[in-house]
């Protein structure tokens, strides 16, 4: 099953490699990993999307917790949370018809065109992984020049929060 695990990690050199090293050394799957500093500069927030049986997921969270750099960790999967991913897509956009069609499609997906040239659009889109994939599918494959995805990040809904 797919799990979304959120972590607060010491913002120290080596913390990221400890975590990614753990996944490769123990043969765990990693679908995506995002990381950036939080409002507290000593902490990084990380979101990991992983898959595995319940037993493996339990091991993953325990092994992550065991790392000295991991301050706090929560598996969001069972709870009420929001997941989002951001994507840039560069598409070929030549001729009025095609440009109009792309704009129309982007409106439907609430995507934003953030860079325009005579022959291309660069589009920004945020949403669940499914939504991002649906957008790419809707674009004709031959028009897609480049796709950049951030990987998912997650946050709990309501009062609950992963903080120290």
């Amino acid at each position: 099953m797919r799990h979304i695990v959120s972590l607060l990690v010491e913002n120290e050199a080596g913390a990221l490699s400890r975590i990614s090293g753990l996944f490769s050394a123990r043969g765990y799957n990693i679908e995506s990993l995002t990381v950036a500093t939080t409002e507290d500069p000593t902490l990084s927030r990380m979101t990991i999307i992983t898959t595995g049986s319940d037993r493996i997921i339990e091991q993953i969270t325990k092994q992550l917790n065991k790392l000295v750099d991991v301050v706090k960790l929560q598996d969001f999967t069972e709870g009420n949370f929001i997941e989002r991913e951001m994507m840039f897509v560069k598409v070929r956009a030549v001729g009025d018809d095609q440009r109009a069609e792309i704009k129309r499609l982007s409106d439907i997906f609430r995507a934003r065109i953030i860079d325009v040239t005579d022959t291309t659009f660069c589009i920004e889109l945020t949403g669940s992984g499914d939504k991002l994939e649906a957008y790419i599918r809707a674009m004709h494959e031959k028009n897609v020049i480049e796709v950049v995805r951030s990987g998912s990040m997650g946050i709990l809904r309501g009062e609950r929060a992963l903080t120290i």
Partner: protein
Amino acid sequence: MELSGSEIIIQFLKDEGVEHLFGYPGGAVLHIYDALHKQNDIKHILVRHEQGAAHAADGYARATGKPGVCLVTSGPGATNAITGIATAFMDSVPLVVITGQVPSHAIGSDAFQEVDAVGISRPCVKHNFLVKDLNKLAETLKKAFYIATTGRPGPVVIDIPKDITAPHIKIPYEYPKQVKIRSYNPNLKGHPRQIKRAVELLLSAKRPMIYSGGGVIMDGASQELRDFVHHLGYPITQTLMGLGAFPGTDPQFIGLLGMHGTYESNMAMHDCDVLIAIGARFDDRITGVPSKFCPYAQIIHIDIDPASISKTITADIPIVGGAKQVLTEMLKILVNSDQPIDKSATEDWWNKIKSWQKQNSFAYDKKEGVIQPQTVIEELYQVTGGEAYITSDVGQHQMFAAQFYHFDEPRRWINSGGLGTMGFGLPAAMGVKIAFPDKDVACVTGEGSIQMCMQELSTCLQYDVPVKIINLNNRYLGMVRQWQEFFYEKRYSHVYMDALPDFVKLSEAYGHVGIKVEDPNDLHDAMKEAFELKDRTVFLDIITDQEANVYPMISAGKAHNEMELSPLQQKIQASLKTSGEIA
């Protein structure tokens, strides 16, 4: 007090109570060695290979319970130490390893003797640090000792660039008495409700088994374990790492567990209805195939490391906590309970175990004219009164030592169980002897293993560390040969040790005493002589039966009640079956 980085390291080690440092110098640690030269409190042991430094510090730590400390240079110094660090990691031994690093400005430039020591060691340390700021040096050292010695212990590496230790840059130093690490808070106290449930389950058992491991020794919980087991009156088996926590000669101890354990321990493991695992991690050498492991048992698992619980075998009652505290709590409940232990409830179970014990599963053929490896260990046990510290290398000799030396005290049996590192024995023995100069220390080894860290014989002479080397010389990489005999139709591929050195002459060349023993009749006297030469390192080169095998054995894919017995043991079993003494 204003000190340089090097002086801070030395002063910190003194303040931390470190007495011995195992190391080897080189460019990146020259400043530290200079500071070391200007003092007399910390004794530095110059090994002959950095692997030896790590193993010696490891042996020292296992025997004393204090952290072992190493100092090695950058590059090859650090990489040489890795095997020793990984060995300590697998067996949860507290080690602090200081590695020199090229100067900060040169890091990443492929400088002379640069390796990414933090990167290379990462998968085999509990934690590691690169010191980038002199002002954080003392605090980092404190963190390293704190992490290495608390919770589930393990090795910690501190990589220190050369500029940090420069003699002319001085800063104020104060010993950091305490550190707090917000992300590291090992939990020692087990959950009270879980503990209560565990006691209730234990008391309801008809066929209970206690299975204890190295965690009991590491946590200093041997006395608590003894009190607990004696109070319950239940049978106990111990892992290779756990031997000595409970006395090997106590009637409640039914022997070693696992691949080469006793028949009764493994049978009891298979048939038990309640299993309590204490400071043991269900290693595959214990469990065999997880699906066939303890098919009838409800399992209680006490471990300080939550990740060890339900990793391979699911625990019905998991208890995260230190063995010492949890056992104390359990015993408290048991003693205060109005429900006394009903010894008759487990009488049938004990009778069954006693019938299995008749199998005498360590019985071996005492062939004429050739020394059996088992006999050597029996002699060793007798001559040392069972009180020696025994280190071992890896192979058949290791298993024979575990089977035939009955350890009554913890920290006396020192071997590489997790990583199975050949070469561990001699440097580890050195570490033990340095910690306990007045005790007998013997290294049980094989002609293969001893050649992996043989060079430390030179260190033994320099620092006057008289250990006894008991070399079970079968001219084979015996354990590998045994597997080739059993599973590869005797195709002995590259396991014959030809062109062996003359170990007697070699020992003499190193300044020690060498004694070769070939005749079984000479064994006892030679062993006695070796231990009577108190202040000499003695190398006993004992020519043993070439094709002796370690029995009994659980082969891959088999259950605990499917042990393979030696031909002699099979005969014993057949006659017991005829007489109806075992089913």
